[in-house]
C-alpha cells in the first residue's frame, strides 16, 4: 500500500467534511482521486497543514475538519502536536500518512521511519489510532480530537499538477465553508 491508496481510503467515506491536505504529491493525488470544493490543497509552506487545520477547527466548530499530514511535514512542525493537544478541538481529525520518506522530493528517508508517531502523540495527550484499526467516519464524527497514523510504503502515483490557482482553491473553499 502506498500513499495514494491511503488517501483513497480516507476520502472514500467523506461527504461534507473539510479536508486540509499536505503539500506536494499528497495534494496532487487527492486532487486526482476526488477533487471537491471542500478540499484545501497546500501549494507552499511544508509543515503547516496541521496548523491550518487547527485554526480552521477553532474558527468552524460546527464543521468536521480532516487534516491529511505526512511524516516529513510533521517532523517540521512537531510543536503543532503540543498546541493542538492544548486546544483539543473536538471537530479535528489529524491523519499522518507515514511512508518514512520525503515523497515529493525523491523519497529520501525521514527519521520518522524509525519512530512510533502514535506513541509520540499519545504521550502528549492525544487519543491515537492506526488507520487500519478504526472506523474512520466514526472517529471524525465523535467528540474527540483524534490523531491517526497510516503507515504505508513510499512511492508516488502519476497524479498531475493541480491546475487550480491558489486563489481559486481559496475562494471555492471559503465559499463552501462559510455559506
Amino acid at each position, binding site marked *: 500500500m502506498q500513499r495514494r491508496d491511503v488517501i483513497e481510503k480516507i476520502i472514500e467515506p467523506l461527504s461534507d467534511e473539510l479536508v486540509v491536505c499536505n503539500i506536494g504529491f499528497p495534494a496532487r493525488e487527492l486532487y486526482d482521486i476526488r477533487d471537491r470544493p471542500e478540499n484545501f490543497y497546500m*501549494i507552499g509552506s511544508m509543515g503547516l497543514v496541521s496548523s491550518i487545520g*487547527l*485554526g*480552521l477547527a*477553532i474558527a*468552524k466548530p460546527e464543521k468536521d475538519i480532516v487534516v491529511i499530514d505526512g511524516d516529513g511535514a510533521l517532523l517540521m*512542525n512537531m510543536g503543532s502536536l503540543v498546541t493542538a493537544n492544548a486546544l483539543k478541538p473536538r471537530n479535528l481529525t489529524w491523519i499522518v500518512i507515514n511512508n518514512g520518506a520525503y515523497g515529493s522530493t525523491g523519497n529520501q528517508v525521514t527519521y520518522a521511519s524509525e519512530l512510533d508517531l502514535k506513541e509520540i502523540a499519545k504521550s502528549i495527550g492525544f487519543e491515537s489510532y492506526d488507520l487500519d484499526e478504526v472506523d474512520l467516519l466514526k472517529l471524525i464524527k465523535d467528540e474527540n480530537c483524534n490523531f491517526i497514523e497510516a503507515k504505508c510504503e513510499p512511492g508516488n502515483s502519476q497524479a498531475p499538477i493541480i491546475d487550480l490557482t491558489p486563489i481559486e482553491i*481559496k475562494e471555492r*473553499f471559503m465559499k463552501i465553508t*462559510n455559506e
Partner: protein
Amino acid sequence: MDSSEAIYNGLKDAEINFVVSVPCVNLTKILNMLDEDENIVHIPVTREEEGIGLCAGAYLGGMKTAILMQNSGLGNSVNALKSLTELYEFPLVMIMSHRGTEGESICGQVPMGKSTPKILEAMDFHFFKPETPENAYGAVSNSWKLSLKESKPVSILLEIKYW
C-alpha cells in the same frame, strides 16, 4: 490611552477576533487584555511560523486574524508569510515588538533588530513604525482593511522607545 491600550483598542476597532502570540515582555499587558476579552480567541503558539498557519486556517473559517510577537518571530516565519499568506492572498495583521532598537539592553537582539525593517522591505510588505500611542492606534485600527486591500500582511513595528 497608554501604549498597550492603543494597540488593544486598535485591534478591537479593526474587528480582529483571532490572535496568536509568542510573548515579549513589552507585549505583556496587551496579551493579558486579550486573554480577558471573551470576543477574541487568543492562542499562544510554540513558534511564530505555526501561528501563521493557524491564522491562515482561521481566516479560511471567516475570522479576522493577527499575530503578536517579537521581531525575531518574523525571521522564523519568512517562508510561511510568502508561500502561504501571500500566495493565497490571506490578510493578516502583524504586531511586532521591535527589539534591538534604541535602548536595547540585550546584545543578542541587535542583529535581527537592525535587519527587521529591511527584511519587510525585501518582502514587499507594508509596515508602520508609530512613535506615539495615537499613531499606533490609527495604524492598527486601519491595518485589517489595508491588509485586505493589499492582499498581503501589514505590520506594526513597536520599537523599545514606543513603550
